[in-house]
């Protein structure tokens, strides 16, 4: 205990140790991110492969459509309605100061159909359906139900993941239209009933500024969002770690990663779609 250590060890400066540890953490994070991205890509390829290889059982698709579409309608309608009203409150505050309160219909409706409708519908879907998908598949993984499927010669991606992805892809445009409609209705109702905005002028300006292309942009975005939510949520559920903690983590990761990706995809599509379809946009028919 009291012996003197006579060996000479080269001392490493603390700053160098800290940089080394930081560098290792960065390298580990990058490696994990790359591995996970590769894994997610392979997972997506598997889904595509099974989509073309074998027909889904109608029962599984109908059940997924019910869970994703029908049960999400109330929450998405309610969110759309309130967002429309909130937009009316905020727009009126700004526009009335410059005497353009009658123009607010254009801003509210444009914002809704191009951005807030699809993004909010997708966010609600990620929260309500994405987390549930990850938790459900995660629980199936932990309780060996996925292994049981495989032991019967059934591919779990075909049986569990594909119906969910297809249902999300099919139904998210409908949910987006519902969010748009309820938002437009909420914005108009609040403007007309509470803020005394002229209803004729409200829709007149909307018609001048909001075109069919704007609605289409929102719907195209929603397809990408739906795909992202379903694939990411199923991926995290499918690769869930053992135990209740693992299922909880999978559900949280499904929502957080889906949400971040929705925002990223929204930005990219926002930049890309307008540039790609500029001629179509200028020639688009007025919708509202």
């Amino acid at each position, binding site marked *: 205990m009291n012996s003197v250590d006579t060996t000479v060890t080269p001392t490493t400066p603390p700053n160098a140790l800290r940089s080394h540890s930081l560098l290792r953490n960065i390298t580990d994070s990058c490696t994990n991110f790359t591995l996970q991205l590769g894994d997610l890509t392979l997972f997506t390829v598997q889904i595509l492969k099974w989509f073309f290889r074998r027909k889904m*059982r109608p029962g599984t698709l109908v059940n997924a459509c019910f869970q994703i579409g029908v049960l999400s309608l109330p929450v998405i309608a309610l969110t759309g309605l309130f967002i429309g009203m909130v937009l009316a409150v905020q727009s009126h505050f700004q526009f009335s100061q410059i005497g353009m309160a009658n123009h607010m219909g254009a801003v509210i409706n444009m914002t809704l159909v191009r951005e807030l409708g699809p993004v909010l519908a997708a966010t609600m879907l990620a929260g309500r359906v994405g987390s549930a998908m990850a938790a459900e598949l995660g629980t*199936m993984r932990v*309780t*060996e*139900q996925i*292994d*049981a499927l*495989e*032991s*019967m*010669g*059934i*591919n779990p991606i075909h049986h569990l993941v594909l119906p969910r992805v297809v249902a999300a892809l099919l139904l998210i445009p409908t949910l987006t239209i519902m969010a748009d409609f309820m938002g437009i209705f909420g914005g108009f109702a609040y403007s007309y009933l509470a803020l005394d905005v002229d209803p004729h002028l409200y829709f007149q300006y909307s018609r001048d500024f909001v075109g069919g292309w704007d609605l289409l942009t929102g719907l195209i975005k929603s397809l990408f969002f739906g795909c992202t939510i379903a694939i990411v949520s199923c991926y995290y559920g499918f690769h869930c770690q053992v135990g209740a903690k693992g299922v909880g983590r999978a559900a949280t990761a499904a929502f957080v990663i889906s949400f971040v990706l929705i925002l990223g995809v929204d930005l990219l599509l926002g930049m890309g779609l307008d540039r790609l379809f500029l001629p179509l946009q200028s020639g688009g028919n007025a919708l509202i």
Partner: protein
Amino acid sequence: MSSQLPLQSATSQQPNSSFISPLVEVCQLCVSFDERVVLQDITLEVRRGETLAIIGESGCGKTVLLKSLIGLIQGQSGTVRFDGVDLCKTTSAELAQLRTRTGFVFQGAALFDSLTVAENIAFPIRQSNSNIASDTVLCDEDIMSLVTESVREVGLADNVCQRYPMEISGGMRKRVAIARANILNPDLMLYDEPTTGLDPIASDVINELIMQSRLQHTVTSVIVTHDMKTARKVADRVIMFHPIDRLAGEDAQVIYDGPPSLLDRHADLRITQFIHGEAGQRVTELSEG
């Protein structure tokens, strides 16, 4: 590695069993997860019609081996052959086809909790229906009569059929899992700790069901268990594994391969301690890390 000792009971009734190729052959299988080696150079065979029990301490790789037998876990090296087909060299479609010839009873039963008991048992039939020609497809009535029959075979009442797995006891869930695994009359039945967590009577019911299923049709069974009563009662042959991290030097991981009746006469301390459930010096070893 495989035992040359004569098989007992049902297996011995089969003519020329020694000349028939084994149903499952495992050759130098190594499985590891990350850097942790679980199975090292495992070589064994499961003969047609025999009931093989795999025993050993927790964490010695019994379940990993069971899952490897049908390709649910892929080894890093070595081969697993099912009815002469190397699982590593099959396509996913061929592997899926091979798996329809097996039944797997998982430790926690692994019943689909969104389906009723009847739907769970009918599930393999409905899936196989979708893979075969339409003229041989079973109608709903036929499926339900098969389900009712198999529910009765495992000693459950008809009214259990409409209940969900969460609404029935652990023993009943295990019986439903056995009924589901048996419904397509598989060639190979795999049981992962079928009696764990059950009371002695429920455990014996499961043992009886395992024996009953081989009386009804020729089936090869592999049972992973800690329960020596199960191993003694149902098995023709017992293989005992030892955890890799407790092996000394170049020792093989399979420390016993033979009939259950000879287990008691074995001199190996590792075997006698396990079969009599004696901790020995283990408490001290564990506290020393």
